[in-house]
């Protein structure tokens, strides 16, 4: 009886809402609106600065400048979807860069430098992950500790010197991060490949589904039989590895390793994910969101420079955008409930 009575209004309401699911979904999604914003700014800047903005050089610069932030944002996205945060990516990037530099300086092969950099990142990720997942400490505290520790380790290892004498394999190593294919920086190609891979994993694999489940309701996921602790450990390792990958690319591009590499990048990386549509409470986000969020920040920075505004204003814009994005999310969230 109950369902007979309720069937009509429920059905009618649902049909109205499902009009065009794809359109409705995109209109409700933050990445869609961020994409629109990127397009509007690019069109506007091309019109205002036709000689400098829509050029090949500027395109090359913009894409390369957000590529390494985007790469880290992908790893960060996995952590944020589970409801955690990783404040240590900038420092882990610095440490991995120094490790690469030292291995090259000692005359070892380029691939050994790459492996050592990745290994340094993975080690930091394992420490973060174990403390968060198995010891149960808040991710904010653990990764804040790693932020300080990894940076100090980088300074100590480098003896506070710049490393630029890369030995016999230096040129090969530098070609990885500094090279370009078809007029686009290798870093950008890598970002695109990684974004596709992350998108696939988030959307189509059991592991990806479980990452979202952990962020949605950790207790429910645990009761259902999801290996919550293992998933958490894995996302922190993954995030630290993306920081190491970014370090390998940037050190190669710049041809030198400094221990200050990545200082303050955690803010840009987290901002990218949040602006792209990740929810800091967990459970929401995606690979495209990380990509488009990183794009918007860099396009705005570039536009400010071209408009002759002091680039030091960038921080103010990024900060305002984070708060605005979270505010938007809050408003949309309260409407959905």
């Amino acid at each position: 009886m109950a369902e007979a009575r309720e069937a009509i209004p429920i059905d009618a309401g649902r049909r109205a809402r499902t009009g065009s699911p794809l359109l409705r979904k995109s209109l409700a999604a933050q990445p869609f609106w961020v994409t629109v914003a990127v397009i509007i700014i690019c069109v506007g800047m091309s019109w205002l600065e036709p000689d400098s903005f829509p050029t090949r050089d500027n395109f090359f610069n913009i894409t390369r400048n957000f590529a390494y932030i985007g790469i880290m944002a992908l790893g960060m996205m996995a952590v944020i979807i589970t409801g955690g945060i990783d404040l240590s990516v900038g420092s882990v990037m610095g440490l991995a860069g120094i490790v690469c530099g030292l291995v090259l300086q000692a005359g070892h092969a380029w691939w050994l430098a790459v492996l050592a950099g990745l290994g340094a990142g993975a080690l930091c990720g394992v420490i973060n992950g174990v403390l968060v997942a198995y010891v149960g400490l808040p991710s904010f505290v653990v990764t804040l500790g790693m932020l300080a520790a990894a940076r100090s380790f980088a300074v100590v290892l480098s003896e506070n010197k710049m490393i630029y004498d890369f030995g016999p394999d230096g040129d090969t190593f530098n070609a990885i991060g500094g090279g370009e294919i078809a007029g686009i920086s290798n870093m950008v190609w890598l970002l695109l490949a990684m974004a596709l891979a992350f998108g696939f994993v988030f959307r189509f694999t059991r592991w990806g589904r479980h990452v979202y489940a952990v962020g949605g309701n950790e207790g429910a996921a645990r009761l259902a039989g999801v290996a919550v602790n293992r998933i958490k450990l894995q996302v922190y390792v993954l995030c630290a590895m993306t920081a190491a990958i970014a370090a390998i690319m940037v050190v190669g591009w710049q041809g030198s390793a400094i221990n200050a590499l990545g200082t303050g990048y955690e803010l840009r990386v987290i901002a990218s994910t949040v602006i792209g549509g990740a929810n800091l409470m967990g459970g929401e986000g995606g690979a495209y969101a990380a990509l488009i969020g990183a794009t918007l920040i860099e396009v705005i920075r570039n536009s400010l420079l071209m408009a002759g505004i002091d680039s030091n204003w960038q921080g103010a814009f990024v900060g305002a955008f984070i708060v605005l994005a979270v505010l938007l999310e809050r408003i949309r969230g309260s409407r959905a409930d």
Partner: protein
Amino acid sequence: MAVLELKGISKHFGAIEALSQVDFALGDGEIVGLMGDNGAGKSTMVKIMAGNFPPSAGEMMLEGRAVHFHKPVDARAAGIEVVYQDLALCNNLSASANVFLAREKMRGFGPFRILDDRAMNERARELFAELKSETLPAEKVRMMSGGQRQAVAIARTHLSKAKIVLMDEPTAAISVRQVAEVLDLLRRLRDQGMAVVLISHRMPDVFGVADRIVVLRRGHKVADKRIADSSPEEVTGLITGAIRAA
């Protein structure tokens, strides 16, 4: 025949006796309402059946065989599912993703296996249809009413082919309008031969749907009788202690 039988079950936490010498039998396709005041031992009894902790004394028989659960997983493997009061769902996932959480259907071969959302949605649609629920498999749980969320939680137990479902206050957190929907769900579970233990404070729900009622007071079973032979007045008296036993 009884699917689940508790014989002389006691549980004490230090000096506190939460349950003493409780006998209880649950038949196939039966809904038993478990009632009692706060602290009467209801949740202790449910937690023993669900494998959260073992009893201090007594025996538990599942389909005639003695069982000893040490973890909730043991109970679930044996066919006992719990639907928790807070429903334990992931709001950010779809209904079917919740139903299949941690037992996702995959397609592909060898190491190249991806989530088979279409098959999961289809199976979830069948499960919701069996429950005669208006729940859409692909819709996010966040958007759902209390009754629909209940259907998702129950469909999960269905998927695992549970024999026994323990429902902890299923109607506590939802609107009056949706209570009828949930009680219908319970009747359908029974019609499919599942045994249900309904823990509830709400007299009308228990009298509306249960076949039998068990009342606990201070860890003792004070009544175990057919609904037809009892009345809400009598049960209230039993719960409060105004009537000593029936």
